[in-house]
């Protein structure tokens, strides 16, 4: 599997990571190498095998439906890069 220039650009966009133009081809080669390594899984017979979804045999339990936490805006906002009163400030999204 070879990852071409356009595919690197598409993945970078999906992953929301800016990739400078001069790094695209090197990154493509690295990703191709890793995908080449994992390609050997094609050899394994997986007919009729259920994909693993839980590591240990356990049923997820439901939590009691009551408020146990929250209502602490100061703690939530303590690490905000930018805030105004009790809100996060984000870049303008609507012109």
């Amino acid at each position, binding site marked *: 599997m070879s*990852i071409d220039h356009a*595919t*690197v650009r598409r*993945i*970078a966009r*999906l*992953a*929301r*990571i*800016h*990739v400078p133009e001069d790094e695209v081809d090197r*990154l493509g080669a*690295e*990703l191709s*190498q*890793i*995908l080449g*390594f*994992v*390609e*050997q*899984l*094609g050899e*394994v017979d*997986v007919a009729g*095998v*259920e*994909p*693993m*979804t*839980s*590591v*240990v045999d*356990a049923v*997820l*339990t439901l*939590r009691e439906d009551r408020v146990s936490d929250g209502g*602490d805006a100061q*703690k*939530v906002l*303590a*690490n*905000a*890069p*930018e805030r105004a009163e009790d809100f*996060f400030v*984000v*870049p*303008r*999204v609507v012109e």
Partner: protein
Amino acid sequence: MAAAALTGLTLAAAREKLRAREIGAVELTHAHLEAMAAARDLNAFVLETPERALEMAAAAGRRLKAGEALPLDGLPIAVKDLFATDGVRTTACSRILDDFTPTYESTVTAKLWAAGAVMLGKVNMDEFAMGSANITSAFGPVKNPWRAKSGPSAGKDLVPGGSSGGSAAAVAARLALAATGTDTGGSIRQPAAFCGVAGIKPTYGRCSRWGIVAFASSLDQAGPIARTVEDCALMLGAMAGHDPKDSTSIDVAVPDYTAALKRGVKGLRVGIPKEYRVDGMPPAIDALWRQGAGWLAAEGAEIVEVSLPLSKYALPVYYIVAPAEASSNLARYDGIRYGLRVPGEDLVDTYEKTRAAGFGAEVRRRIMIGTYVLSAGYYDAYYLRAQKVRARIAADFRAAYEKCDVLLAPATPSAAFALGEKQDDPIAMYLNDVFTVPASLAGLPAMALPAGLSPEGLPLGLQLVGRAFDEETVFAAAAALERAAGFTAVP
């Protein structure tokens, strides 16, 4: 006691001496803080918390004096920078978390503090726990306190392994009695082996993941790194337990792990997985593995050969599943609510610039691999197939445990290598985890312990892998191996 004698104590011995009032909690913590200051060139700690340590030690001292000692009262330990610590900067050793200071405490560290342990500081690690040499940290690499006496690495700085490289180096260098680690594909066991110390990854679900920065949620588990098997048993006893805040933490009783240490291995069936005899394994590691089986046999264990036919596919499965989960988990780092923000022309540009500047090369690479294998048109071919092969790998282990009670294998395919080696070849770096990844995929408890030295004078570890939730058998076999190996070498 002299400071060096204090830092040289095992956790268990220090515990006894504190209780017998032979040493004081503040004195013990002070000795460790001094050792940390004297060993800063190792770069094991990314944040020292001496004031908090001395406060905690003083409180422990008062309890000890009053005869109200908690299980780990007054014992100074280091915390991997992946655990959220209330009011203490937590970065996962990534630039993207910047100076993130949690307003909450991870469940595992909260349990350790409730047991009286003393926090010395936060230790270095690979960025987001992605790495096997502790070279991807935003704070720079950690040096292994060990040095090769001969061979091509002689005289060079060696890597401590990773991702819990700071944890293992700090414990090996006698800067902490023990440390917390996390293990996703070998991140406790591989650095423990490289640094000549012990470490256990418990069964998936044994320790709460709440408050631990997530890497790959179906694989991540917390566990201790310490200098002896008994010290690991004491630590894990305090760290483990059900937590309603982690829906994957399992509600089963935590046994007294220290009681299992005295069980012995008489009649225990120890499996030797034949597929782990890989090409190019150094003769010293193969010899140590045979020696380990011999030691256990001499103690009355029955050695049986078992087969784990799909072992060679564990690494490729891991390098689909772990990046896939990471790409999802790390989507939260968007520069909006916490951590680094690099302003862009619009919202998407802000995301992209923030993530490009905040994530290191290995993390970016893994996020992109994960994004690719989960993307439309590739999900079935990569991710779904990997999860099917993973189910078959887990089935291999179940079949093996019909013939044996615990598996014995090497911990790593080599001793610690020099800083700078394997840096440019991701696949060569990934092969470090060839013996540790399978148990991670199957969620099984696995322990590494030092058992001998390479011809170059570097520590080599053996690994024991048990059935799910049977850490006790792992501890029993590890204690027997430790007694037989008599590993006393120090860096």
